[in-house]
């Protein structure tokens, strides 16, 4: 079992319902930290491409490899999770993640001390709604999408379900990546690419 997201770029209307529903469900206060981000990327050849992306729960998570505190772990179902109580806020995970997924709040967004935690603002990120998954519910972003542009499931089963989709790669979706990062983490993210269009 390897949980993965599916994203239909030709359906996404960049409405941010997924990202707001995510903040609401997970109680992430207003502020810069948002586990799922939605952007319309503008390419040099005049293209405009929507992308809704959170943690890609990689097969070989770069964040996990560099976490010397041992706070990041991978569940048997592929979900990459964090034990916030032992995070030491070294932030190497943020540096190494090709997708800039790990985030750290400030005092305003996260005003209350987390009892028993090592650091005031431990790393946080998408946990694939493990609470909902364990309750046989779809992740809140998938359940919220008015455009039916998001789906989730086992990576291999999703590939069969959406034969037009391809795995996220730097070559096809350069705007999903931070510059100067490797593309070797095996993201559990399948995308149906939007057709290019013309303008004059």
């Amino acid at each position: 079992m390897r949980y993965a997201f599916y994203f239909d770029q030709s359906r996404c209307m960049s409405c941010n319902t997924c990202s707001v529903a995510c903040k609401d469900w997970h109680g992430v206060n207003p502020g810069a930290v948002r586990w799922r981000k939605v952007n319309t990327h503008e390419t040099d050849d005049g293209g405009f491409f929507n992308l809704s992306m959170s943690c890609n729960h990689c097969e070989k998570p770069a964040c996990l490899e560099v976490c010397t505190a041992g706070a990041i772990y991978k569940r048997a179902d592929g979900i990459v999770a964090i034990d916030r109580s032992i995070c030491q806020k070294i932030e190497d995970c943020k540096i190494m993640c090709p997708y800039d997924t790990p985030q750290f709040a400030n005092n305003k967004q996260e005003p209350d001390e987390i009892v028993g935690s090592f650091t005031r603002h431990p790393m946080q990120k998408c946990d694939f709604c493990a609470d909902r998954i364990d309750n046989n519910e779809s992740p809140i972003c998938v359940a919220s999408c008015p455009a039916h542009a998001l789906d989730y499931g086992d990576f291999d089963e999703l590939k069969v379900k959406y034969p037009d989709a391809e795995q996220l790669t730097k070559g096809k979706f350069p705007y999903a990546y931070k510059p100067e990062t490797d593309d070797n983490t095996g993201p559990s993210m399948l995308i149906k690419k939007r057709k290019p269009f013309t303008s004059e």
Partner: protein
Amino acid sequence: MKSFDLLSNFKSKLSITRRGFLQGALVVGASSAVIGCAKFDEETSGKKVEVPIDAIVYGSTGHNCGARCITKAHVSNGRIIKFTTDDTATYTDGKDVSADSENCTQSRACAKCRGYKHRLYHPGRLKYALKQTKKRGDLSGFVRMSYDTALKEVARKHKAITDKYGPESFHSLYACGTIASSWQGGGYTGIWTGMNGIGGRYIGGQLSYTDDYSFHQKSFFGNRYTGYTSETFNAPVVAQHVKNLVLWGSNILSTVNEKAYSWIRSVEKMKERSGTKVYFIGPEFVDTGVTLADEWIKIKPYTDVALMMGMLYHMIENTFETTGEIKANPMLDVKYLDTMVYGFFASPAYWIHVGVKEVKDKDGNVTTAEVKATGEIVFAEPSLNPEQYNKVDAVPAGKALASYIMGNGDCLGGTYDETGANATYMSAKFISANPSITRGATCDYPVTAGTGTTYMYKRDFATPKTPAWASAITGISEAKIKELAEVYAKPENHPVASTWAGGQTKQAEGVITFFAMHSMMLISKVWGETGNVFDRAFGGSRKGAEGNLPVNIPREIPDNPGSPVIGCTQWLSGIKFAFGDKLTVENGYTGEFVPDHTVTDVNDRNAYFDDSGVKSLVKWKRDDKGKLITDANGFYEWDKDGTNPIYSGVRFILNAGGNILINQHMNPNDSRQVYESLPLSGDPDDAETLCLVSLDNFLSPSPRWCDYVFPATTNWEQEDILGISLGNTIYVPAVSTAPGESKAPYDFTNELLKAYAEIDPRKSGLATDFTGGVADKSLERHTKDAFTIASSKEGILQGKTWDEYLKNPFLPRVPNDSEITKSKSKLRIKIDNYIDLSDGDRIVTPFIKVDTSTDSSKNHNQSVNLVGLSNAGYGDMGGGEFSNPETAPDSPARFTVYSPMFVWRYENRYSKFHGYLANSADRGMKNKDSEGDPLVYPIPMYFNYEDYFMDAYGGVDKLPPAENRFLLTTTHDRYRVHSSQAENPYLRELTHRTVGGDLYSGDDWNEYALLGAEPAEGNKYSIPRLNKAIADKKLNATYSEIWMNDSDADKKGIRDGDLVEVSNVIGTVHCVARLSKRCVTGFLGLHQGCWYDPDPETGVDVGGNCNTLMASRPSRVDHGNAQQSAMVSIKRVVV
């Protein structure tokens, strides 16, 4: 919290993770609005605890976002912990809900409703009634008052004013904060706002308004002037039949969430068919374009009509030789145009036989026998049975639409054909009457100032409107203009579905855009066949909703007394009409923000822009039933103060959950100056002062400038009955504790009527009538009554208990997935057949008949109705009260692209109210611009945007300098509902940024829209500025984004994230620049709905409200809001 029993088969305790439990625990004990602080420990390892969620409750929203979707509130102890949305798995017919269908009716809410928690529990929520004691708008002048005391003062004030100035002096302002609820708030049938608001009728009547701020220009134009009618527009038609979908600026995916998926899925299916294409035409490539379009055609704002004229030129050029002969393979169907499209070409005056409809008396006896129309044409007034004929006025050669398009071009000099392949019954008749008649001549409209005219459009009358001409204006290439022309003109490219956008209906020339669009589609024959469509928003095809509750509150609501109905944007002009003598420079009213209307004009009560009903606002005489009395001259009789009329104007405004008063109306700087110059409401028994009252959740800009402010509840805090767009109408209980003394509009009205009864015995019993004949009967009790009936009858609710209903009241509508057969409309078949008939048969015109049904235009309606083409009324609504209907032009009984009626109605609007004006030239509305030429012409033409700005800004020299001149529009984005939710931090952070910050750098949560410390009753507030962080010069202060093309920004030295100042002679705003290729060059996009927050020293609106830049001058013809039209300069602000 409403305590309803949770349902037997419903888990009263949800199993959720420990994280959720901690959130819940925090919330229960929270005294501030800090909720849901994330706690992360061990949750992903799967440890679970039980958290007491009391209920998961279905609801929706009542504000004017364009859709009603499903949200489900997870409630714990009177507080909402989180939201989910619709996850219905099966329809009422048992079939599975499938996203494969474009008619799928899963009703998923958008970000606005998902972020509602931070609206409900915002620290700035109003809790108590406020009264201004210093000067309107003064944040240090509000005193906390008890709700009841304030209500009693408001009732006394209303009585004092309306006793003296009549019901026409009371205006319940257009407001859409609760528009979707007929039971709580407004809309078109609700309590306070809307044309039929009942609250005003209970308290003696009200001045009503036409249509609304969203679609005034579209509604005004209607479809009777041209006779154009759209075919059915829905998702299956797009999926199965449409070949070309042309999105004229459409923004539907952002503005009508409930329809978004139907659009996306149907366009997906459309694209699976070969040979289809989706165009998006607009200056800003909005999300709808990014998601759906194959091609973005970049157009300069406000130039759609120029594009259409260039397209029409191409069609004409490919139809006629320069000699006027018809080409071998003409692009246009000349026979059809000659026969059926009045005014494209010149034609002589004639009389056409339209017959007589049967008339019966009340006993059913025929008093007038039917005479069927023959369509016979004669060129002299018939002496026999003249009543069976309509006179059709001549279309002079230089005034036809084709003449305007061709300018002084020469290919229209040809004559009509009397015989041969191109001859028609009409053309042959025209020739027989006048052998020298030609289809066109050099465009010939008057230019009084000659070559010295300051109006650019007049200088272009004789210019051929070639694709090259259109290209220079629109910025679109000639080749693309020709390609678009052929999309419309060539039958093989049909069906063509065209969508208009709300943006076009809020521009200075929006009415003309609709006139041009109708004309283009009529001329190119894009009508009358499945998929040939012109509409705004299509949705899925679905069966009717099941399970609606037949809620009925029995009321005996008084009729509204007879009264004029003013244009919806003209209430401020009405205030100026009432207090013209007091709005003096000495009192602080400088008029500087309205350059095209002087203070002297205001003092003399010259209604602005003459006048959309404002000069009808004198006190009227009424009979004992409240009806207006008509005098012997056909005018309404007016009340007198000695010999003068009593200037009622607008003196008392109730703003029930809206923000028009300051924010959403153009030019808040001027509105504010009016309110600040006039004395406070003061003494509740003084009839001579203006009184402004708001109900609101926050001290947003409109309540800030009011005399009285009442705290109001919102969704989830008030019980309501809301119609879900994709399903049935549901009852929504109140589940979240409302702050302080806030009340729902239903309860406000109940209490106000009780307060009124104490001072006016005539009003006793009205409160009880309002609540349905039983004192204080709640909506819940009315709903339960209806439920009892519904559950006892056959139907989907049969046998259900109330608790079962509350558990899941939502029933999605069942998709109608059957195939649609392509077909022609009856009218199209008739016309196609008619044109092909032999001469003798052509005299019988099956499509020409006269409808004698009445509408607001009453007795001249018979002569102008294009029946068979449309039954819809003219859109000038309140204006359609004429003293002289017999002078109206007759209908040509065919499609019309040259409309004398369009001009006549303009010039005669409201004339029945104008008997008190001694000078007959002052009656009706003046159709004259500053040079004495018409404002309104019988044809659509391109009015250069520079001309509007020249008028609105007070002269050519008042336009922004040529080297720093940008056109600005104010698209709706999806993160505000107009200006509702402008305070919601979950949504603000998606549209606001810190200076120099990236996207989503917004961080002024709990620092925006605050009230300060709550004083004891009777004491003053000390309220901070809306944007406290900006006022305090904090680094986390955020500004609204303004969208700008990156190459423009480069030239102006502006970088992404820079603070910028955007200004014109009307106002100045501060924003943060967002650079994007999604804007055309020369264009700025400042999305509407930010709250006005003028700096007290500089007057600069740091809130970034787009309307601060919008001139007061209304749109041409309809006098609606031109709030998508601004010309501005931009510069970087160094911080």
